[in-house]
């Protein structure tokens, strides 16, 4: 009985710590950032810092959802930022309003029109990112390259690919319907929030209402035993990386729509690191295993709440990075402490074998 309680406690704590972190930041804002919680209604749309957190954080939340599954299999996906850039470039190039390969002038390019139907643009954008994910998945699961190295390839090469697609240009987008994804509103809330919610729910159903979630965790915890149980660890990895590519593509679409441009060098820059941080804050171990999609999404929200709070306080962009370092440090300290508590708690004499012990464990 005892163990049942402590087990569920550990699972709950996956959400507990990240919610605590969020509460601390919000509490700080309540005291020191006047008007942070104010939400105004303009033209039937909601505006305010909290809405901005959700809207600006949407791409990161999407990337974090995909990253969660990859990390849960015991892998990592460093290419997510580059994949965002590739997808954004893909969308921007297809928007080109000039018919055929006719020489294009500035006048044509800046026209609010497109030669490609919006549905095709969206599908091609998502397909580009998903293919990138598939490529990562094949490298990891079939070519057996270590995930860090395998995805590093696309992390580096991806920005080059994005520039090849956009012909080395930063493409400014003038086509209004495309802006809907990053700037549109449904029932007073930004469209991106609905997209995140839809993907999160789909992913949750996909992993928790099918055996896939269990398989992902099993692969992350002990891939050999999982293979010996007749489960194809390869296909599970392939699925996770491909899905991560899809999520990055969607994130790239929303981001380029929000900023009205596609920049091969800067779209989604450092998103891989933020996404990993969000997942770790959500309590998923980098070594793989148990995961929570919701906790990762909240992790992403925490990062953006922190960023926007700093902006609201007037902290300059370069000092922001230092502030972020403090956040990362705090999170890591919180978690290492939690792990220590866990280890002390589990010292069940019948269970712990001597080889589990690390010499030099602090004593109570």
């Amino acid at each position, binding site marked *: 009985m005892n163990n049942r309680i402590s087990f569920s406690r550990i699972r709950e704590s996956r959400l507990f710590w990240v919610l605590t972190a969020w509460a601390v930041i919000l509490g700080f804002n309540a005291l020191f950032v006047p008007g942070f919680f104010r939400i105004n209604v303009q033209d039937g749309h909601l505006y305010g810092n909290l809405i901005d957190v959700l809207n600006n954080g949407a791409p990161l939340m999407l990337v974090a959802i995909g990253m969660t599954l990859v990390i849960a299999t015991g892998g990592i996906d460093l290419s997510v930022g580059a994949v965002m850039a590739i997808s954004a470039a893909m969308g921007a190039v297809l928007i080109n309003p000039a018919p055929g390969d006719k020489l294009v002038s500035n006048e044509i390019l800046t026209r609010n029109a497109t030669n490609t139907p919006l549905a095709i643009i969206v599908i091609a954008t998502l397909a580009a990112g998903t293919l990138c994910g598939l490529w990562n998945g094949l490298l990891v699961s079939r070519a057996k390259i270590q995930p860090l190295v395998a995805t590093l390839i696309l992390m580096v090469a991806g920005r080059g690919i994005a520039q090849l697609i956009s012909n080395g240009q930063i493409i400014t987008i003038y086509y209004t319907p495309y802006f809907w994804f990053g700037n549109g509103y449904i029932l007073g809330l930004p469209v991106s929030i609905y997209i995140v919610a839809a993907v999160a729910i789909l992913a949750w159903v996909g992993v928790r209402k099918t055996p896939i979630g269990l398989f992902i965790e099993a692969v992350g915890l002990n891939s050999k035993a999982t293979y010996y149980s007749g489960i194809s660890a390869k296909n599970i990895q392939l699925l996770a990386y491909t899905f991560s590519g899809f999520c990055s593509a969607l994130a790239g679409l929303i981001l380029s729509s929000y900023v009205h441009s596609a920049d091969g060098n800067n779209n989604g820059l450092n998103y891989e690191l933020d996404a990993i941080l969000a997942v770790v804050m959500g309590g998923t171990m980098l070594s793989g295993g148990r995961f929570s999609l919701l906790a990762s999404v909240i992790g992403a929200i925490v990062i953006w709440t922190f960023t926007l709070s700093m902006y609201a306080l007037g902290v300059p962009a370069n000092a922001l990075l230092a502030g972020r370092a403090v956040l990362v440090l705090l999170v890591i300290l919180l978690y290492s402490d939690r792990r220590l508590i866990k280890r002390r708690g589990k010292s069940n004499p019948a*269970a712990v074998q001597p080889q589990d012990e690390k010499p030099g464990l602090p004593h109570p």
Partner: protein
Amino acid sequence: MIVMADPQNLITVSGVSKAFPGVVALEGVEFTLRKGEIHALMGENGAGKSTLIKILTGVEQPDTGSIELENTAISIRSPHHAQELGISTVYQEINLCTNISVAENIMLGHEPRRFGGICWKKLNELARQALARLGIELDVTQPLGIYSIAIQQMVAIARALAIASAKVLILDEPTSSLDATETARLFAVMRSLKQAGIGIVFVTHFLDQVYEIVDRVTILRNGRFVGSFEIAALSRVELVAKMLGRVVDELQALAHDKDQVESQSDKGRLIEASGLGLRGALEPLDLTVGVGEVLGIAGLLGSGRTELASLLFGIATPDSGSLLIDGQPVTRFSPQALIKRGVALCPEDRKAEGIVGDLSIRENIILGLQGRYGWFKFIGRQKQTEIAEKYIKLLGIRTPSPDQLVKNLSGGNQQKVILARWLVTQPRLLILDEPTRGIDVGAKAEIQKLVLELVKDGMSIVFISSELEEVVRISDRIVVLRDHVKVAEYDHAVSDRTLMQTMAGEA
């Protein structure tokens, strides 16, 4: 102190208790280790052996009680402190680095220095001396990984003795991955250390070994101290009875069950392998397993028995011969494909290949069936719990809840969870590779009994074990492997002795 200050006493533990949240791990334990004695520490899983060892090595601190080293009260603050005091430990799973040289492993952290750098010549010389003390000669400049597990174990002991002037050596199940010759070699080393006046604490599950080498034995049960005995004055049955706290007749009863099953075989062949082999792993061999038959595989460590299991389960793909299941050839070799054909394997390395320790019992049990169902046919949570509870009851897995993590179970119960994982899929052929290794006597008997019951229901079983007695007791036929070659096939009437001679290549 009641214990008299006998100068022969190395370690005296008196009245030691230790409680963890919710569990009393040790209660009033007494333990005396004398100079130049080999002292076995015995008990079922969960008896408190590990906790006592952790206290002696400074990993845990006792709540009450005292520890004396050479009749001086001490408190062992940390593993490092234990080493300084002269208490060295070699753990079951060797924690050395296989990619650096033998000498570096032995001297790691104590390298002799010269001009600010490491004096390699001296380092190798010291390592050679440390090994020579154990009567072993090796090329100490070679990486450790090229040597066998047994040699690595010796190196671990050499390291334990070289670091400090060890007075006490704790060996935690050192023989569980060694074969007979390797064990004999280890015992020779232990005897010479004993001559040198070192006290050895020896934790093992093997009764034979206890009677072969040990002077005295301390028995623990459920964290309580049962007693310390001179081994010469304690019969095997008494020893087992003290460990279990009851008189065991289950083991004897098994032989009787076997006779009843006898008439059942010969219902046709399930598995037919002809010329099945894989270069470097197994020479081509012929093999049949009948429906409802137990085929025992006997062989020393490295004889090819685990390789045979890998081929039958599709982990490795044979490069010669054919494998028929129900007369139909197997064309695709992968666990997934073979599981679909009704084959299941309980692997030898339970921790690395069997359980997923951080998943619950429920999830571990369901993994096999769910793997067979694939991605889209989901077993709902409620159904999962039902299945898990059914098999927990059926196999007598001792746990408060199906949501308990498997890593928190004892070895025997972990083995039962893997058995449950496969029984759920209703396999036709169950391959058991060392199913009773490292588990206590009670659980061993339960698993052997279960095997016989499954056979009664028409399941076929390939039973691989290094305990000959067990193989003979359970199997209908026995195939003997030696150096990756099938050397003989016997019916169940064969004696342990004949088997042993065949395995060793004497007959």
